[in-house]
């Protein structure tokens, strides 16, 4: 393996963790990472959370210190865009025409924010998505320059809500416009939506639901955001958080099999034997839930990275993970484990000594699918163990908040 070249397209959580894992697994040849983002690869989740809420941040949270790329002999080609993959000649072409040969190629292109086709969105002032370091700089600069600091966030998902909490901390007046009849509609049960609606209300953020934005008008440097119920909201700054589009174009043009993402097997291999794909851009098999899924998460990025590295170095490993996620808003920590899709029963526990310590347990019949835990690390960790072990839960005991959370508390007799 000493003279072989591994090329990685995309240098964020998946690509970077892959590169370091590949070295650790014993790959002695070249490892070259390309990414159009010019920054040394950084942790993305903190951007909308802690990072955005602090003025004059100087240091990004790096995935690995800069010198580690040198000591591990990993070449970072930042600010460079790959425009083509030729899988027959095993070459990639950069947008400047440069050609790079590979023996193994890893696609870790992730996703980009989806900008919905709202009338007037192209001409709106200070309108930004929230995914990259550059986005946080743009948002913070716009806040600084604005006297009124009126922020409208389009979309009440995690990005929208975290951004709302962070900008509130910076002194902005924040309104969130959600199209559905509750926030976090796509990802949580109504009980969680209620909890977060209340939390944001207590902190002075207006979460408005059933608000379908249809146009944005600009006049004198200010936006007017107009909804289909004829209400409108003035915004000095607009943040768009309505979901993502997977960066599939390179893989598509190359002729790899695509199905809601780049389709990979349990070793992260694509339909081409020399090309692997990892992270948000993949449509992969989850053996616990026995179905193909696409995930936007650090957990999946890092776990697939390790599987890809190990596989490329000749080991026999398979991806097998229970997904987990987290979100920080104000002083609340939300931790989620498992996938709730397909649930038909929900149990909410509000711990007796603390109403800010909650958990929502998602079941399909008797099978525990997922747990959302609010300020409740115990429920999160135990939930994860129960899901993984397919433990049978006594729902009557789980509902009973006089029973404290312990590994044996909710087991069936």
């Amino acid at each position: 393996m000493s003279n072989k070249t591994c090329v990685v397209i995309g240098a964020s959580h998946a690509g970077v963790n892959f590169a370091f894992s590949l070295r650790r697994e014993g790959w002695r040849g070249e490892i070259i990472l390309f990414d159009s983002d010019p920054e040394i690869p950084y942790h993305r989740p903190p951007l909308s959370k802690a990072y955005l809420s602090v003025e004059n941040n100087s240091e990004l949270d790096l995935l690995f210190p800069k010198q580690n790329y040198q000591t591990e002999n990993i070449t970072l080609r930042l600010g460079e865009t790959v425009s083509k993959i030729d899988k027959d000649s095993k070459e990639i072409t950069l947008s400047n025409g440069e050609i790079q040969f590979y023996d193994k190629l890893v696609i870790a292109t992730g996703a980009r924010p989806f900008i919905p086709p709202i009338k007037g969105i192209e001409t709106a002032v200070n309108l930004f998505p929230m995914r990259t370091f550059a986005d946080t700089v743009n948002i913070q600069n716009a806040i600084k320059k604005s006297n009124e600091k009126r922020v409208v966030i389009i979309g009440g998902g995690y990005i929208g809500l975290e951004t709302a909490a962070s900008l509130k901390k910076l002194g902005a007046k924040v309104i969130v416009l959600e199209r559905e009849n509750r926030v976090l509609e796509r990802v949580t049960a109504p009980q969680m939506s209620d909890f977060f609606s209340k939390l944001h209300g207590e902190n002075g953020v207006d979460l408005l639901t059933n608000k379908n934005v249809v146009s944005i008008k600009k006049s004198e440097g200010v936006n007017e955001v107009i909804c289909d119920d004829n209400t409108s909201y003035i915004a000095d700054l607009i943040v768009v958080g309505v979901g993502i589009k997977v960066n599939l174009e390179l893989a598509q043009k190359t002729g790899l099999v695509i199905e809601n993402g780049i389709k990979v097997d349990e070793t992260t291999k694509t339909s081409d034997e020399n090309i692997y794909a990892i992270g948000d851009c993949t449509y992969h098999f989850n053996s616990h839930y026995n179905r193909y899924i696409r995930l936007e998460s650090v957990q999946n990025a890092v776990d697939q990275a390790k599987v890809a590295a190990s596989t490329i170095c000749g080991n026999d490993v398979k991806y097998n993970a229970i997904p987990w996620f987290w979100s920080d808003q104000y002083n609340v920590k939300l931790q989620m484990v498992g996938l709730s899709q397909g649930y038909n029963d929900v149990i909410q526990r509000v711990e007796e000594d603390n109403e800010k310590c909650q958990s929502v347990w998602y079941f399909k019949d008797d099978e525990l699918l997922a747990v959302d835990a609010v300020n409740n690390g115990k429920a999160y960790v135990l939930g994860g163990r129960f899901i993984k072990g397919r433990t049978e839960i006594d729902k009557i005991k789980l509902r009973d908040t006089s029973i404290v959370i312990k590994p044996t508390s909710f087991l069936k007799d």
Partner: protein
Amino acid sequence: MAKITFVTQGNETITVEGTAGNVMELAVQNKIKGIDGNCGGVCSCATCHVHVEPEHWDKVGAPNTMESDMLEFDEKVSDHSRLSCQMKVTENLDGIVLKVAN
């Protein structure tokens, strides 16, 4: 400055020096196997779990509530478990030995 020794699951012993930040970051910088710090150090993922050598427990101290909630039901918990992202690198830690849990 503090010298901190990590012992991995593969029984590799690595001693490193740190001056600032937290112990998880120091471990990641020094490629300590089994410490990932996937959440970036916000006590959300437990991928930086260590067992402190009992005789060094007093130097380190007990975990905070959020951290102990994450550790209590972890399958690898011991009486001297900590999440290394919640441990600040200070001179107090000089000479401690940490066994990587994963």
